[in-house]
C-alpha cells in the first residue's frame, strides 16, 4: 500500500482523489505519507518522499532548476490522455517505425495564451521524436500559434493551435506518421451526430481528464514501487519551456 498526500487546490484534489479511488494498493493520506502530489514547487523541493508535481508547465524554469536532485515526476498529464496512450504505446513498441511527421490541430474554446496551450503539444513532439527540435519556425496571430519544428534526422512536427474559439467545444486532431505505419487520434472521426429541429450538429467526446490522471498516478506509483525512473522527467518540462521561449508575441 502506498499512501499519497494530496497537497493541492480543491478542484485538483478532488480529481486526484477520484483517480486514487480507482487504483489498487494506493490511498490518500494526510500523515505518514510515502509520496506527495503537489502543485507547489517549494513543497516538492522540501519533500522527503517522492513527489508528483502537478501543473509543472506553470512553474518558472528557475524554480524547476532548484528541483535538481529531488525525486520529482512532473505531471505531464496530456501524455496519459486516453487518445494519446495508444499512439504512444504503438510508437514505443516500434510499430510505426521511425517517426516522420507529427501533425496536431488543437483548438480551444478557453481564453488562454496560445503559447501556454502549446506546452503540452510541444512536449508530445519532443517525446515522440526523442529530443527537442533542431530548428523551429513560428507563425503567430492573436489567439493563434503555428509551430513548425524540425528534429534531428528528418522528423518534423507541424502544430496548429488556436484559443478563444467561438462556442464551448474544443477540438483535437493528432497524426503520428512513421516509416512503417501511422496513428490517428482525431475528434473528427470520434464525433457523434445530434439531429434536431434546427438541423444536425456534431458532438465531440470530451477529453477524459480523470482517466489521464489515473494513468499518470499509476505510472508515478509504479516508478516508486519498482524503484525505476518515471517515463517523464523534469528535463522534459524544461525542454518544452525552452522551445516555447523562442515564440514571438502575436
Amino acid at each position, binding site marked *: 500500500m502506498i499512501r499519497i498526500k494530496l497537497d493541492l487546490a480543491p478542484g485538483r484534489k478532488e480529481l486526484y482523489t477520484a483517480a486514487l479511488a480507482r487504483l489498487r494498493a494506493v490511498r490518500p493520506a494526510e500523515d505518514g505519507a510515502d509520496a506527495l502530489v503537489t502543485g507547489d514547487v517549494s513543497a516538492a523541493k522540501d519533500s522527503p518522499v517522492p513527489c508528483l508535481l502537478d501543473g509543472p508547465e506553470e512553474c518558472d524554469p528557475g524554480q524547476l532548476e532548484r528541483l535538481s536532485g529531488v525525486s520529482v515526476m512532473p505531471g505531464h498529464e496530456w501524455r496519459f490522455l486516453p487518445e494519446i496512450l495508444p499512439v504512444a504505446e504503438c510508437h514505443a513498441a516500434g510499430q510505426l517505425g521511425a517517426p516522420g511527421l507529427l501533425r496536431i490541430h488543437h483548438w480551444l474554446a478557453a481564453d488562454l495564451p496560445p503559447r501556454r496551450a502549446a506546452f503540452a503539444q510541444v512536449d508530445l513532439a519532443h517525446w515522440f521524436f526523442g529530443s527537442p527540435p533542431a530548428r523551429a519556425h513560428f507563425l503567430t496571430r492573436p489567439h493563434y500559434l503555428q509551430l513548425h519544428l524540425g528534429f534531428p534526422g528528418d522528423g*518534423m512536427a507541424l502544430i496548429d493551435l488556436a484559443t478563444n474559439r467561438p462556442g464551448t467545444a474544443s477540438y483535437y486532431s493528432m497524426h503520428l*506518421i512513421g516509416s512503417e505505419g501511422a496513428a490517428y487520434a482525431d475528434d473528427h472521426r470520434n464525433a457523434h451526430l445530434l439531429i434536431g429541429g434546427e438541423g444536425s450538429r456534431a458532438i465531440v467526446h470530451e477529453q477524459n481528464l480523470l482517466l489521464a490522471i489515473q494513468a499518470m498516478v499509476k505510472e508515478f506509483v509504479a516508478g516508486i514501487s519498482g524503484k525505476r525512473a518515471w517515463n517523464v522527467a523534469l528535463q522534459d518540462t524544461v525542454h518544452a519551456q525552452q522551445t516555447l521561449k523562442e515564440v514571438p508575441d502575436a
Partner: protein
Amino acid sequence: MPDKIYRALVLSVVKHGYLPNAVAAHPRFELVAVADDADRPDWTHERNQLYADQHGISYLRDVESSLKDIDCEVVVVSSEAERHCDLAMRAALAGKHIVVDKPLSPKLAECDALVAAVKENGVTCLVWNRNFLPALVEARRALESGAIGDLQAIHCDFYFSKDAGPRKGSRGPGDPPLDWVERQMDAHADGSDGGVGVQPLGELQIEGIYPLAYIRMLVNSRVQRVFAATATHFHQANVDNEVDDLATVSLEMESGCVGSLCIGRIGAASHPDIGEIKLHLLGSEGSLVISEARPEVAVYRRNQPPAEFKHRRVADENNFLLMENFAAALDHGSETMLDANGARDIAAVVQASLQSARSGTPINVTP
C-alpha cells in the same frame, strides 16, 4: 453555342488515362486523335497507340502537323510532367484551348511562358485539379455562406497511402540506385505514376498542386511567404533520386490569413484507404473540418483483397464538373476553376517551399 461539341486532340497519354477519359466522358467533348512527337521513346508510342486503339481514334507521331491539320478546338495534355508546359505552349501557339494535367511544370520560367502564351493567343486553359470534389464544394459553400465568418487560418493534410516501390533502406550493398523512369512505369498499373518522366519529382511537386489549389480556391489570396521542410522518409526511389516523399509547409497569405500543408506518400500500411486528406479551417465565427473522402460508403466482405479500398467515395462529380466548367469557359469566356495563371502561382509556392527546405529559412514567393 451551348450545344456545340468540342473536338479534342490528345497530346501524349503516357500516364493512366484519367484526364482524357474525363474529357471523353463529357457530352460536350469528343476525342478525335492522339498525337505525340516522333522522337519519343518506344514505351511512349506504345501507350499512345494503345489509348488510341481503345478509343477507336488514330495515333499520329507528329505534334506540329496534328495541331495544324486535325480539326479540333481543344488539346488535352497528359504527358510526363516535365513536358506539360511545352506541349500546352505549342497548343496555345496553334490557337487551341487547353486541358493540361497537373502539375503545370516543375520550372517556374516555363509556367510564366505558358501564362503569356495563353494570354497572347486568347485561348482558355484548365489545369487539372480536384476542386469540385463534393467535400470541396461543401467547404466552399460553407465559407461563402459566412458560416464560419472571416477565414483566419487554413490547413490541409494530404497523405496518399499508396506505396511507391521498395521501402527506404531496402537497397542492398552494391545494388544500383533505382531508376526513376522505370519505377514510375511500374507504377502505371495502379495509377500512381503522376511523376513519370526523366526528371525525378518529389511529392510536393507532383501532388502539391491539389491541396494548394484547395487553399487557393478557399482563401482567394496569394501565398506571400513560406517556410518548409522536406524529407525522404518512406521510399527507396525517392532516396536514390533525391526527391521528397514527405513535406511540411507553413503559409502566409497576402490577406493576413495563415495556413499550412502536410503532404506525403506515406505507404500503404499507413491508412485503410487512399489516405488521410483533410482541411481544417478557422474563421472568426467558427471552424470547419472537412474530410476530402466524404461522402463514402463502407464495404467489408469475406476474401476482400488487402489492396481494395473498404471505403468507397461516392457522389464524386469532379471530372464532370471540371469539364462543365471548361465548356462554360469556352462558351462564355468565363474563368476556369484553375487556369494557367493560378497553376503558375501554385508552382511558385512549390518552388519557394523547396528553396525554403534547402535553406532552412522562410522564402518569399515570386509574384
